[in-house]
């Protein structure tokens, strides 16, 4: 329960600080400036979804984690790490050919890793772990 509360508190802090930043910053509403904000909203949305799911489990009297959910996390982590290595190799290969700042490429890489992790988690959550 404490973990779920912490997730909600952190998400609320991120949302409030982002709202303050958004209100005070001079955003020109082009894609490059809105993309970090969009990624932030996505990450906070995922955290809130996980927090709500945990609270529902606790209310039903279920454990927050069990052997299957832990195995899914381990499998997801290993597969997403493996795929992310290739993602960074591709980014490194194209970094000289693209006219982008280094911090933008790093941001794209990190966002890509988060997306790979999310998609891997969804894949294993739906498929299951039959032969593990």
């Amino acid at each position, binding site marked *: 329960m404490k973990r779920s509360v912490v997730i909600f508190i952190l998400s609320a802090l991120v949302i409030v600080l982002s709202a303050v930043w958004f209100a005070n910053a001079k955003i020109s509403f082009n894609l490059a400036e809105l993309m970090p904000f969009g990624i932030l909203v996505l990450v906070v949305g995922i955290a809130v979804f996980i927090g709500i799911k945990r609270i529902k*489990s606790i209310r*039903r*009297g*279920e*454990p927050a*984690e*069990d*052997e*299957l*959910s832990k195995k899914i996390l381990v499998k997801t982590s290993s597969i997403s790490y493996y795929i992310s290595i290739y993602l960074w190799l591709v980014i490194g290969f194209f970094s000289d050919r693209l006219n982008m700042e280094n911090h933008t490429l790093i941001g794209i890489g990190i966002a890509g890793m988060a997306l790979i992790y999310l998609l891997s988690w969804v894949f294993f959550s739906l*498929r*299951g*772990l*039959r*032969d*593990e």
Partner: protein
Amino acid sequence: MTQDELAQKVKVRRETIVFLEKNKYNPSLKLAYDLATVFSVPIEELFIFEKDI
């Protein structure tokens, strides 16, 4: 017995019971033993081990 009740008896999440029923997950020995104990049957009656060799 509902999936929820069974999950609470063996201390796992309901999703784990759903995955077991759909044959999408192989339980640990402990979970298999706990399930067999709840139903008062031997493990072999609940889970069939398919030999690869």
